[in-house]
């Protein structure tokens, strides 16, 4: 289309104006523009407070916090892998069955074949990679939609779990193995606040403050910062406060759950993978616009394949932790876990169409589900009503997200 603009109109493209006005107004405006992330965080806090009040303070009792972490670790572990799959625009329905399968194989290796449990753990993680490679091959190189491949995998690995167990269940497991699911770091001191946990909590808080300050100064240096200082400080104080609160609660009970260390490592590693590595960036590129990624020279098939290998390893890890916690390898382990993980990811702000989502978001989503489970159990809400409420929370979270996007897109 040839238009007849005068040369004076050259360069008349609209320039988005930088935010202006007083700091408080700016902070509020920023808050509104970031409503989806902020809202998630606020929702978590509101839900915690709600249960804290309705359960008469049981929710934040030291023993309950400790249980909460142990019992929901599997959702959080699986959510880390699932969010990556969903960012790439795929889905994995097989993780629950892989949990059962890997647990079954671990049981046979450790109790029947007498393989030392640390070796068995490594072998099981390799097995997870093989499972992922199997599914990744069909998805990436054969072009079958992930929904179909992993639906088949859901049946396949559930069946294989039964085959491996030969219709039985395996229990008990050695203490060393059980520790990865329900153990604690060795405790020092006899009474009051356990010192090792306090030191770890303090170190984590310092690490958070340092990295946040450093990132902010880098963003400022490159002129990318639009987060108001007030809001930055509020967020920082809140995050550190939360870490310290959990630290104190854990320290006054049994100390640091080993699974919390596993989770912490997963979150740190995969946040870096998604944010800072070529692999992670290619996952976002594939989910955001597959055709554009291909035409930019991204090896989309290989990336998708590796993504599912990674998911397989994480599902295997989830299977080991869950089996250890339950002290039981059973063919019905992990039933429906895929749905918990997928819910966590979507509550955590990921987009069904791909390209959007974060590891910390998925963790917060998983925590919301975990606290709902825990709080409703304390309140003696029936399993039927629990499901209704969880369904509505998922729907509300995604509806809120879509509403938010439409609103900001309309401006």
């Amino acid at each position, binding site marked *: *289309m040839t238009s007849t603009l005068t040369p004076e109109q050259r*360069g008349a493209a609209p320039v988005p104006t930088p935010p202006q006005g007083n700091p408080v107004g700016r902070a509020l405006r920023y808050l509104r523009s970031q409503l989806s992330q902020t809202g998630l965080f606020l929702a978590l806090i509101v839900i915690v407070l709600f249960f804290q009040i309705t359960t008469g303070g049981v929710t934040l009792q030291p023993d309950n916090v400790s249980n909460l972490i142990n019992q929901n670790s599997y959702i959080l572990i699986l959510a880390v892998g699932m969010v990556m799959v969903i960012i790439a625009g795929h889905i994995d329905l097989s993780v629950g069955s892989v949990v059962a399968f890997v647990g079954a194989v671990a049981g046979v290796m450790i109790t029947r074949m007498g393989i030392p449990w640390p070796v068995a753990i490594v072998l099981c993680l390799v097995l997870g990679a093989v499972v992922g490679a199997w599914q990744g091959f069909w998805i990436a190189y054969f072009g079958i939609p992930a929904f179909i491949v992993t639906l088949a995998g859901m049946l396949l690995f559930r069946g294989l779990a039964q085959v491996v167990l030969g219709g039985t269940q395996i229990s008990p497991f050695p203490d060393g193995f059980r520790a990865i699911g329900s153990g604690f770091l060795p405790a020092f001191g006899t009474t009051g606040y356990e010192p090792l946990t306090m030191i770890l909590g303090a170190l984590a808080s310092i690490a958070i403050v340092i990295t946040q300050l450093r990132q902010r100064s880098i963003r400022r240096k490159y002129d990318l910062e*639009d987060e108001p200082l007030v809001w930055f400080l509020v967020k920082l104080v809140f995050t550190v406060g939360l870490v310290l609160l959990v630290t104190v609660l854990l320290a006054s009970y049994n100390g640091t759950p080993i699974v919390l260390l596993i989770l912490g490592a997963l979150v740190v590693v995969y946040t870096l993978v998604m944010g800072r*590595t070529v692999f992670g960036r290619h996952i976002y590129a594939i989910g*955001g616009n597959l055709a554009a990624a291909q*035409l*930019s020279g991204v090896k989309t098939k290989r990336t998708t394949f590796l993504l599912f290998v990674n998911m397989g390893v994480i599902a295997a890890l989830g299977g080991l932790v869950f089996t250890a916690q339950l002290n039981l390898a059973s063919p019905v382990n992990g039933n429906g876990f895929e749905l918990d993980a997928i819910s966590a990811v979507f509550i955590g702000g990921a987009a069904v169409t791909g*390209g959007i989502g974060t590891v910390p978001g998925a963790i917060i989503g998983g925590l919301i589900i975990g606290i709902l489970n825990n709080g409703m159990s304390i309140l003696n809400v029936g399993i039927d009503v629990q499901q209704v409420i969880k369904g509505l929370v998922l729907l509300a979270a995604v509806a809120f997200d879509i509403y938010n996007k439409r609103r900001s897109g309309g401006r």
Partner: protein
Amino acid sequence: MADTILEMRGITKTFPGVKALQDVTLQVERGTVHAICGENGAGKSTLMKVLSGVYPAGSFDGQILLEGSPVEFRSINDSEAAGVVIIHQELALSPYLSIAENIYLGNEQSRGGLIDWNRTNLEAGKLLRRVGLKDNPITKIVDIGVGKQQLVEIAKALSKEVKLLILDEPTAALNDDDSAHLLGLISQLREEGITSIIISHKLNEIEAIADKVTIIRDGRTIETLDLKAGEVSEERIIKGMVGRDLESRYPDHEPHIGEELLRIEGWNVFHPIDRSRQVVFDANLVVRAGEIVGIAGLMGAGRTELAMSVFGHSYGSNISGHVYKRGREIKVNTVAQAVENGLAYATEDRKRYGLNLIDDIKRNISGSALGKLATWGVVNGNKETTVANEYRKSMNIKAPTVAAITGKLSGGNQQKVVLSKWMYSDPDVLILDEPTRGIDVGAKYEIYTIINRLADQGKGVIVISSELPELLGICDRIYTLSEGHITADVPRAEATPEHLMQYMTTYRETTEA
């Protein structure tokens, strides 16, 4: 005295920021074939969408008179009820339904709420015979070729008791035999009293079957020529299509042309799905360092197909031929290989194929060369930001920061992000497909300046464009492409719009090796 079936008076249609049609008039006589000609983007399709109710009455100014009385179509259903049926360039058939089901889609032959399959198939069979098809009406659409699908579309139009049939580029996707058959059918329908409006780039076809031709340029009616009354040459039509002044919208540029960078020899490409249809025929092409080479061709000539097939076989099937860089043969079987070998391709459809619209500027810019920013697979975010900021300044990308989401930028700025992405991959040869499509005049000037700068850095630049003035304004040499054949290689000094248009509309056997 002439029996006018359709009259469009003073049609003006405005899109935000652009006047697509300005005071267009069109008169079509009953029982004729009326052609509409114009360059890509002249407004032909918009005019037909106004006529068929795709753009409802009220969204444009002007009046439409059908058989003498004013009509206001609010939707396609209204216009079809009045006997005006449009067949779009992209066929609108449902591939897994049968021919008969498609013909009566939305107009199902039912009795008492149940579909009368006997009548459906019987009537469909009659219609098929009218358009010269012998296929069984229960054959699925996927099982017949594009040529037959086009005829099914016409049969569908006939089922609606069409008075005025509009065909938008009906032969663009057809081979010679199918085209000839279709044109024969249009003449036959004329004998039966059905009036047709045909939009086409192929001047030989227009000469062969049209009674009159109306030429549209820049959204205005230029003239209507009577093809039956006297000799109207193709040159005459071309003059009407391109006859406009070259404004000084192009920056001055002194080329410094060096050694040969890229040579493509004997390049053949077939359609990716319809594998028997050849899209590019034995193309040969050379680009030298510091040279800006244009590829001119009308829609469907195979410009994008040629470029994308060279860029990592990202289009087509059965690709054969050789690509040489600085005289050494290179492989371009995957996009990654093409990029490694110093090729870059900036797509004509930047929203679909060029950008991750939900991600920010810096990550889009680094997208094709992330490896340059990474050590051991870890991306150096600071370096990335620095690089993106450099491009933001040098390319004059208007955004508050490089963390701005690309989906919210204007077309011109999006295009600059795409160009930055490919400049950062540091290619030797850049293929720019419609680099200024959908961009305002000011930003176009900036893009031309960038193209000149790339050439001055010793890179070879291939520019594909539908706008001849643009090619004439910036290129050192222009290839013309017609129906998949490279028909000429014209130096800038010898190129005129008429000259180029002639090569773009005629495919000559003699050019085939």
